[in-house]
């Protein structure tokens, strides 16, 4: 394309319609940049920015390894995600774990498996007692339905002093 043609493209015509090519070029630039943003959003979604993906899958263990948790850092309002709590203690013992923080205000616990032997309220959270197997391990599987919006803090602790704490974000 020659410079002459380039000039011609940018000149605003007054007939048969009144054009504003300066504005039109801004619109086209907006469309182009917008397209890049859409592609970026698709890639981020695939990576799990809006839950379920490498960016969102998290795994945490306490320093002595007696409490561990697998969770999603990002949730969406109205969708359910899994959370797994792993406990390690004496063989065949009853293990106590406290789920604290304000997370129960943002999440509804839809399922909790296996059912704990006993449970009790503990401040904002709750305390659960679960039976460990012969290797001293116990796992709790939770299904969490995101109901709030924003950041919620969770803290999982055992009486032995092992603690993991983390934040979860719920998108609207």
């Amino acid at each position, binding site marked *: *394309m020659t410079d002459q*043609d*380039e000039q*011609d*493209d940018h000149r605003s*015509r007054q007939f*048969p*319609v*009144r*054009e*504003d*090519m300066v*504005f*039109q*070029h801004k*619109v*086209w630039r*907006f*469309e182009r940049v*917008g*397209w890049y*943003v*859409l592609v970026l959003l698709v890639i981020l979604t695939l990576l799990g920015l809006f839950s379920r993906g490498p960016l969102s899958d998290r795994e945490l263990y306490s320093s002595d390894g007696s409490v561990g948790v697998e969770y999603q850092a990002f949730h969406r309002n*109205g969708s359910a995600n899994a959370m797994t709590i792993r406990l390690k203690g004496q063989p065949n013992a009853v293990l106590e774990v406290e789920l604290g923080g304000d997370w129960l205000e943002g999440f509804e616990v839809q399922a909790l498996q296996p059912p704990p032997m006993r449970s009790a309220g503990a401040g904002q959270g709750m305390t659960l007692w679960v039976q460990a197997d012969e290797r001293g391990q116990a796992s709790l599987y939770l299904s969490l339905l995101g109901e709030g919006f924003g950041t919620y803090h969770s803290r999982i602790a055992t009486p032995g002093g092992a603690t993991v704490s983390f934040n979860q974000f719920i998108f609207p």
Partner: protein
Amino acid sequence: MDSVLRAAAMYAALMLLFKIAGRRSLAEITTFDFVLLMIIGEATQQALLGDDFSMTNALMVIVTLIAIDVGFSLLKLRSQWVSRLIDGGPTIIVEDGKILRGRMRHARLIEADIMEAARSSQGIETLEQIKFAIIERNGKISVIAKE
């Protein structure tokens, strides 16, 4: 409260998305566009209503959407600037039988699109017979034939 916020947020998001998509999108409904439109509708419906299927909620969402729509059209009457921002302006892409290639490329059109519009609206056979071809604000191509 949240039905109004939901409707307003969805209106704004869809407005922005269709501005990014440009004038051409969904202007000429092909079979695929029709399917796309239905999928967008289905996806939007959930977000608009949430888990509240009451009649009040449905009505409030519709009332909000229509109120925003009428509000914008009133605003467009008063302000040239708003009108241009929302509806855009027409662009000439063929002038005296000559295609303005740079513009055509920016508008994501090819020559076949222009000739299709020329044939269907004016029965025009060649590019030379076109005096003006204009992309209208709604994305349709209107063609003016030479005398």
